């Protein structure tokens, strides 16, 4: 488990990170969400040891991280980049070896990854000659080539075409399945919602919420229901304990004082005619996010 504990970082008078604490569980895909300048990249850089924190520590498996542990991290920085004039495979082998992998293992792992990322044919092309999509794949390969035990990805999906997103997803799941903590940041909240086991929300350098996706939903749940009936649903307004938020012919979105009231609405609807659908409304992560960040 990766633990970020009370990390603070200041740039002059500005506090970029204020006592940031959260956890990334083993084998859990953790989404790190926040607006621009919220502190995601700074946090990730501190986890990787590329930046040093003013206070606070990062622990892996209970012990404070040192440079040697960080060699086992896979990192995809927000600012993408590889050596433009180096060949893809050569570059991956080099990066793996910088992480302490032997030449033989580095070559085997490179071949394996390029195969999986469908880049095998481009192995001897220079990075600058690749298409943008393939450059992204090469970048992902660079984060994975040394078989990292922890994966930190800064905006891994930005700029990816839908096919590449699926490929990357597959790879992330594979890594998480092996028990590695995976932390990735994203602006695309729908992607985070679909993918993540856990979510960490950061705003202005402070953690606003963290925990499992389910917990985030539960914590921010509202008692809202959607009803769709064949006939006119105007009668919902007259039900006691019900506030209608939206209404359109047979459709009604309402807030109920408690679950029993909601069940009462459903019973009444069934008495009046066929019910096309009745369901509690789940708020999307985007809605929760905007509220949590406020």
């Amino acid at each position, binding site marked *: 488990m990766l633990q970020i504990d009370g990390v603070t970082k200041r740039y002059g008078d500005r506090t970029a990170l204020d006592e940031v604490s959260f956890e990334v569980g083993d084998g859990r895909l953790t989404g790190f969400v926040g607006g621009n300048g919220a502190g995601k990249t700074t946090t990730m*850089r501190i986890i*990787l*040891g*590329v*930046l040093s924190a003013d206070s606070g520590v990062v622990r892996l498996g209970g012990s404070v991280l040192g*440079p*040697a542990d*960080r*060699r*086992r*991290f896979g*990192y995809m*920085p927000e*600012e*993408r*980049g*590889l*050596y*433009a*004039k*180096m060949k893809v495979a050569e570059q991956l082998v*080099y*990066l*793996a*070896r*910088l*992480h*302490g*992998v*032997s030449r033989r*293992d*580095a070559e*085997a*792992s490179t071949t*394996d990854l390029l195969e999986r990322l469908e880049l095998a044919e481009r192995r001897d092309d220079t990075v600058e000659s690749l298409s943008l999509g393939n450059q992204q794949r090469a970048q992902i390969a*660079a*984060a994975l080539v*040394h*078989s990292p035990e922890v994966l930190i990805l800064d905006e891994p999906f930005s700029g990816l075409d839908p096919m590449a997103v699926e490929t990357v997803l597959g790879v992330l799941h*594979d890594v998480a399945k*092996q028990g590695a903590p995976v932390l990735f940041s994203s602006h695309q909240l729908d992607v985070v919602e679909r993918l993540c086991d856990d979510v960490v929300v950061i705003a202005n350098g402070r953690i606003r919420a963290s925990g499992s996706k389910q917990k985030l939903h539960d914590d921010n749940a509202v008692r809202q229901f959607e009803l769709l009936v064949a006939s006119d649903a105007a009668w919902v307004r007259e039900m006691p304990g019900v506030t209608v938020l939206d209404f359109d012919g047979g459709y009604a979105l309402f807030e109920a004082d408690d679950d029993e009231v909601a069940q009462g609405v459903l019973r009444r609807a069934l008495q009046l005619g066929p019910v096309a659908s009745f369901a509690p409304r789940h708020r999307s992560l985007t809605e929760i996010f905007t509220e949590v960040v406020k």
Partner: protein
Amino acid sequence: MIIADTRANTFAQSAALVADREVRMRLRSKAFIISSVILLLAVIASIVAGSIVGASASNETTRVAVVGDSRPFAQVPSLEITEAGSVADAEQLVRDGDVAAAIVPGDGPTGIRVLALDEAPGDLVQLLSASPEVTLLEPADQNSGLAYLVGLGFGIVFFMAATLFGTTIAQSVVEEKSTRVVEILMSAISARALLAGKVIGNTILAFGQIVLIAAAAIVGLMVTGQDALLGDLGSAIVWFVVFFAVGFVLLAAMFASAAALVSRQEDIGSVTTPVMMLVMIPYFLIVFAWDNDLVLTIMSYVPFSAPIGMPMRIYLGTAEWWEPLLSLVVILATTVLVVLFGSKIYANSLLRTGARVKVLEALRG
């Protein structure tokens, strides 16, 4: 998925990997190969040219016609004598261009007169003149014209190699910043290891080039039969190579740290200019003050000019045996200091992209 055997690299292993990449990428660059070959050819050409000029100077003979007793002149080695029956015959030979000049009996104190076409034959007159015996109280070890050329040679080679590889190292630092690959590198190895690897890699290349040039110069001198020159120059060249190795590490660390302050290739010039000056000043000094003992002595102890100044003094024979060693200690100490400061600037600037980083900010962190 292949589970690789991951173990943390030591500092030395990381630096070696970086150095290895630097060397391999450079050797793949056509521009580098071509500029190296040109530099090498220039050195060989200057040695061959030197030998040709030297040879023609020593073998040149003057054809003269002599009227009367030619025996005294036959002893003068560079004269080719044609005996002429009369002054008129001799004059005709001169007019026809068969001989450069004619020596005929004359009335003056020497008893001879020289006939020439349109210009007084200075060489001949000098040969025939009686020179007073000269004793030098403090003879110079070396011919002054040659000394100038030797100084110029050291200056040019150092200047060329330092700017060539200094620029190379600066570009390679900025390349990593501008392509942002540096963040991945820094998540794997320390900035110090990265800097060390870069400096070592480029020093190996520069050193290899210098050794190649020195070897070409030595072989060239032997093949063209200028062994005598080699005797004087040999130890100076060896010291030059030693000083170059240390001096280059110093410059490379400065170039790398300076380049780390900027994020775009276009901005390299603005930060490396001060370092470039440090390379250029010794070059101009050796060109303009190669025969000034004081300047050379100072140069031989200032770390940036010692790689030119000290070998020059060794060649001129004005350095005591311990002086190169002392100067080497000075330059080594400076190098250690510069590398320490430089690596701090380097480490603190690498992740700052965008505007140029100020040196003081980089030192503070």
